[in-house]
């Protein structure tokens, strides 16, 4: 083998180390973003004292941060769960978005595609219409539960309809079924809202997404689902690369196309439904983060999936910072911030692609 042959043929061989480096950088970025996220807020201690206080909590480290117990409570009980939840939500939405894009071989697909958003919105609307005052006495808050169940039911309906009308391996029929289910759920939601116009404001603010009320309870609530769905999606990263040559050729290469799609869609939906249930609908993360990641690390899902996971966490933690301080002391909904940053970014991205081609 001549020298250029060796380097060129070796390119797929280098990948394991490069992925490890990317993941290490990503984990460091998540840590930095989370510390920054914990430093900023309308009330509480001076920002620079927070990292010291966090260091102080590490085992075998003792630093005098100068924080009072009350200030530490602000950091630990209000900011920390919010930052952790933002990281989980951002990571899950972008990983689910990347997985959906892989499984449907369509770059414009997002995790809400198969009806998860509309179903969750409908579930939340029903709870608001029943009345938050009457549900406040319930032992379990029905809002996240209804959103979660709504999302799962909507995606299940999409899957059943799409499989019934589509061919054996057709992803396109599934996407179209998702459009139909989304319209249907949205129509019911609009009907309910029209009859209960007093809750429009609450529903609207839920739809725009919120992290402001995050508690450690929310984190504990979503963590099992997020962990399970993350593991399932990451395990499929090589198989998503096989799917890039189309369903027929992937099948001829020995891939169980229908099973892969079912498991990946199931995992992505479970994760999406769980985070939507606690954070509302946060737009754009599932599309723009995977696309930005592709520009940096290339199109292979072996890199896109793990890096999207980490980049999504960084993005949402940082996007949540302006949402806290822009309209201080009021909150700017996180969904507004992500779409406000996301839309121009998306256009710039499309332009960059066009220039390259």
């Amino acid at each position, binding site marked *: 083998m001549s020298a250029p*042959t060796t380097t060129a043929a070796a390119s797929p061989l280098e990948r394991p180390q490069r992925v490890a480096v990317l993941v290490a950088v990503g984990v460091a970025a998540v840590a930095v973003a989370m510390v920054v996220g914990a430093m900023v807020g309308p009330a509480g201690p001076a920002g620079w004292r927070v990292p010291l206080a966090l260091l102080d909590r590490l085992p075998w480290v003792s630093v005098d941060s100068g924080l009072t117990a009350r200030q530490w409570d602000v950091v630990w009980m209000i900011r920390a769960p919010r930052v952790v939840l933002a990281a989980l939500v951002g990571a899950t939405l972008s990983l689910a978005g990347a997985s959906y894009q892989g499984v449907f071989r369509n770059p414009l697909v997002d995790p809400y595609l198969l009806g998860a958003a509309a179903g969750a919105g409908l579930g939340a609307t029903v709870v608001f219409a029943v009345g938050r005052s009457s549900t406040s006495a319930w032992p379990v808050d029905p809002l996240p539960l209804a959103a979660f169940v709504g999302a799962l039911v909507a995606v299940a309906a999409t899957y059943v309809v799409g499989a019934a009308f589509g061919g054996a391996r057709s992803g396109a029929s599934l996407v179209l079924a998702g459009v139909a289910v989304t319209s249907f759920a949205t129509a019911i939601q609009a009907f309910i809202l029209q009859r209960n116009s007093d809750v429009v404001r609450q529903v609207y603010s839920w739809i725009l997404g919120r992290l402001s009320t995050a508690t450690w309870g929310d984190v504990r609530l979503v963590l099992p689902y997020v962990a399970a769905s993350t593991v399932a999606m990451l395990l499929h990263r090589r198989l998503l*690369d096989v799917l890039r*040559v189309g369903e027929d050729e992937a099948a001829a290469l020995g891939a169980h196309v229908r099973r892969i799609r079912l498991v990946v869609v199931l995992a992505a939906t479970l994760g999406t439904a769980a985070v939507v249930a606690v954070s509302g609908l946060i737009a754009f993360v599932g599309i723009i983060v995977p696309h930005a990641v592709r520009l940096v690390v290339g199109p292979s899902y072996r890199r896109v999936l793990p890096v999207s996971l980490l980049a999504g966490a960084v993005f949402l933690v940082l996007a949540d910072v302006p949402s806290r301080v822009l309209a201080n002391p009021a909150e700017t909904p996180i969904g507004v911030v992500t779409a406000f940053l996301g839309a121009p970014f998306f256009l710039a991205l499309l332009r960059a692609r066009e220039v390259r081609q």
Partner: protein
Amino acid sequence: MTTLGFCDLGVRYGDTEAVRGFNDLLHAGEWLCLIGPNGAGKSSVLRAAAGLVRYSGSVAVDQVEIPAASPKWRSRRIAYVPQSPVMPVDMRVGEYVLLGRNPWVAHFSGESAADRAAVRSVIEALELGALAGRRVGELSGGERQRMVIARALAQEAPVLLLDEPTSALDVGHQQHALELVDRLRRERGLTVVSAMHDLTLAGLYAERLVLMHQGVRVAAGSASEVLVPEVLAEFYGASVRVHTDPDGTVVVVPVRSRSGTVPG
């Protein structure tokens, strides 16, 4: 060395019967070429053997019937090159060829060093080394064809199915591609089934031709037995002259009708 058998193969698309009662047995290392007009069912036979369409009857590799629900079992024995492969334009050529190892990689793990070594040797054998780091979208038609064949070879399957392997290539690249398949068949003992439109090339490379018409095999044999003007007129509706060169090569040439109508 591996045999490939078709027993009473049938393929339906809805109400249309694309293939009916197709039987054949390829001996190990044989090259069989399916010919016939458009819609005769050639591709359907290949797609059935590749497990891409439902079929009745059976396909057997070394006299073992292919289990219906095991794409992995099948893909370790049968490699399939479609007529117009999907080109993931931003994928690297090396990554593309590496996909051919999928049948041998456990579901959720990555390729082993042995898999990568196998891919390197295929890339070297097909002289793709200089292209391995390039993007698929940057390749010419002939280079893409070699890359797709490389992926099929990386499967290390003893049976190779080629659907119209040369239809998109110029005469030089057609020859290169078929010579390559022929060389690999000899070196590696591959059993090859191809579907082809160019009758002269089909007769030149395949040891046996099977002529299909409306889903049924209507003639089979060597080039000089099948490529007969009367037969081609009947099933292709074509008016052709057939020359036999002194070396035995059968050349099929269309005849221009001076009156502007095609007889048949």
